[in-house]
């Protein structure tokens, strides 16, 4: 049994080399697999990855056939699912969560003829690439709006204290404090990515304690909905959440994976795929901002547009010095900016964060 599988994969690999490129056509489409960490119906992280898959499928038409597995736990189960996708004939596999990094690496080593794309991790191989999104750029734009529209206290419903989330809180606060030097961000950790009830409880606590705008780094639309019900403003996360709070939503940070999926899948079909490690942001269109909500003031809109354009042009760096930490000690000197490496290890809060 095992030998037979081995033989088949060896033949496939040999055949592929022989053909030079694995050209796809309608009769024999190029197969692409996706592994999702949550349900597609989460309206957040996994939903957006699936939107990317659908956009890619639409763009490339009959040349590709895609397949996905949702709700895959970030443990031993992931490796089994990835192996199944390999044996199902998928030639390119996207694994869309940090916890899939090690399982993907193990399968990639065993299946050199298949190409792997792993989201938000940091390990690459000749047949395994990494991709990530500069979500914090979107947070900085939201911060500019909040600085103009808040009286000074904003609530932030956060998931887990990992660098990505800390980076978002800091980028948001830094941008807001450029407008209002007394700006405060109150953070509540809910220790979950997805629990609408608890996210909503946290949102209510923040409003009761004086927050007039809510930001979130969790996946459900509960925070925006609570903001709408209580008559305060909020920022959506992952997908455009304005339908859950028409008046409340100022904008949403939208993860747009489509350009990357289209680009990389095309390269794989033509045989030009090479391993890489990319971190795309507003400039490349991976981070998008949903249309400004009707409540956004003229002043805040101008500031947001300006911030978005300058980040895209590279003239505004969200983490440019001087940056002080919570205790007031200078962490980044004037004229310097934090490197990508430093950002990915961020474990301290900037001045103005209450966490």
């Amino acid at each position, binding site marked *: 049994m095992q030998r037979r599988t081995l033989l088949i994969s060896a033949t496939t690999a040999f055949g592929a080399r022989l053909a030079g490129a694995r050209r796809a056509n309608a009769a024999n489409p190029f197969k692409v697999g996706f592994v999702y960490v949550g349900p597609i*119906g989460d309206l957040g992280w996994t939903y957006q990855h699936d939107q990317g898959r659908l956009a890619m499928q639409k763009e490339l038409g009959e040349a590709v056939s895609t397949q996905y597995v949702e709700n895959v736990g970030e443990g031993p189960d992931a490796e089994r699912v990835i192996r199944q996708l390999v044996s199902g004939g998928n030639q390119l596999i996207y694994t869309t969560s940090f916890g899939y990094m090690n399982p993907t690496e193990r399968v990639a080593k065993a299946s050199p003829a298949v190409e792997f794309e792993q989201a938000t991790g940091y390990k690459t191989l000749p047949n395994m690439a990494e991709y990530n999104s500069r979500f914090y750029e979107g947070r900085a734009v939201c911060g500019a709006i909040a600085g103009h529209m808040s009286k000074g206290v904003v609530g932030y419903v956060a998931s887990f204290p990992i660098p990505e989330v800390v980076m978002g809180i800091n980028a948001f606060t830094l941008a807001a404090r450029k407008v209002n030097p007394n700006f405060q961000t109150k953070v509540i950790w809910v*220790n979950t990515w997805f629990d609408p*009830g608890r996210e909503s409880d*946290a949102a209510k606590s923040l409003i009761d*304690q004086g927050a007039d705008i809510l930001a979130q780094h969790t996946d*459900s639309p509960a925070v925006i*909905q609570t903001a709408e019900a209580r008559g305060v403003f909020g920022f959506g996360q992952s997908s455009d959440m304005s339908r*859950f709070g028409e008046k409340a939503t100022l904008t949403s940070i939208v993860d747009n994976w489509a350009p990357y999926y289209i680009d990389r899948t095309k390269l794989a079909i033509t045989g030009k795929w090479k391993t890489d490690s990319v971190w795309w942001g507003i400039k490349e269109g991976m981070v998008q901002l949903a249309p400004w909500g009707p409540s956004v003031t003229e002043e805040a809109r101008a500031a947001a547009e300006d911030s978005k354009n300058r980040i895209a042009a590279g003239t505004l760096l969200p983490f440019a010095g001087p940056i002080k930490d919570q205790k007031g000690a200078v962490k980044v000197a004037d004229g310097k900016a934090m490197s990508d490496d430093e950002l990915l290890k961020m474990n301290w809060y900037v001045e103005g964060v209450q966490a």
Partner: protein
Amino acid sequence: MTGDILVALLATVVTSATPLLFAALGELIAERAGVLNLGLEGMMLAGAVAGFITMGETGSDTLAICAAALAGAALALLFGVLTLTLVANQVATGLALTIFGTGLSSLAGVNFTGRTVPALPALRLPLLSGIPVLGPLLFRYDALVYLSVVAAAAIAWFLKRTRAGMILRAVGESDISAHSIGHRVIRIRYLAVLFGGAMAGLGGCYLSLASTPLWVEQMTAGRGWIALALVVFAGWRPWRVLAGAYLFGGVTVLQLYSQGSGFVAVPTQVLAMFPYLATILVLTLISSGSARSRLSAPACLGKPFLAPG
């Protein structure tokens, strides 16, 4: 000012306790009849999605609440057929029911993700809600909140003071004896399981209609399991279930508040653990001695019953 905060705090506690209270009370009845149904989470999700769909389609909260109870009871009926009629293992069937309910609710809700419905309106009880402090504190919630508290009282009364309640307990304590004096064990257990399912459905729909009026897959996020634990820690007593649900809700909300107020220098992971610890601790203490709590478990809990002869 502090009064306002207190009112807001209590309102949040109530919304976080009510779904647990419904589900745990229903499970309590099933367990007192000797049936262990681990499918709470699945039945809650079925109730949540059925309530939400009905609300979205008809706009009637009464119909939505009825649909949620029916959906929970329908899954419970399936559980009953498998475990009571076909005598399948209750633990395995209950776990399967959770998985089934999760999948079924996701499937049923596919076209409803992303839609919103108006939240259940608060009932402003005429005179009472006008009382200065007490009014907003106690008398301005939606109908389901009052229903859950009334249900706790009614169940306590039912189990202790009525003949039917005593028969139900007898079936849970010694099915053979109850059978031999002529009670229909299987029928009584069916009714208890169906009631448990309906209550779990109500708990689920509180989430999708009142607490966060939206439908997202798996939105119960483990509350079924917490409700299940509450029943055990409450020693199968309705008033303690009520106290436990409010205690759990209260400590959960307090830890969120204390983070927001910023004077707690404790890692948030410890704070997140705190509601569970506090609930276990208090309920262990009030059940006065671990032995008594063990003794108060219905003797036939989880055991299949086959009528002799």
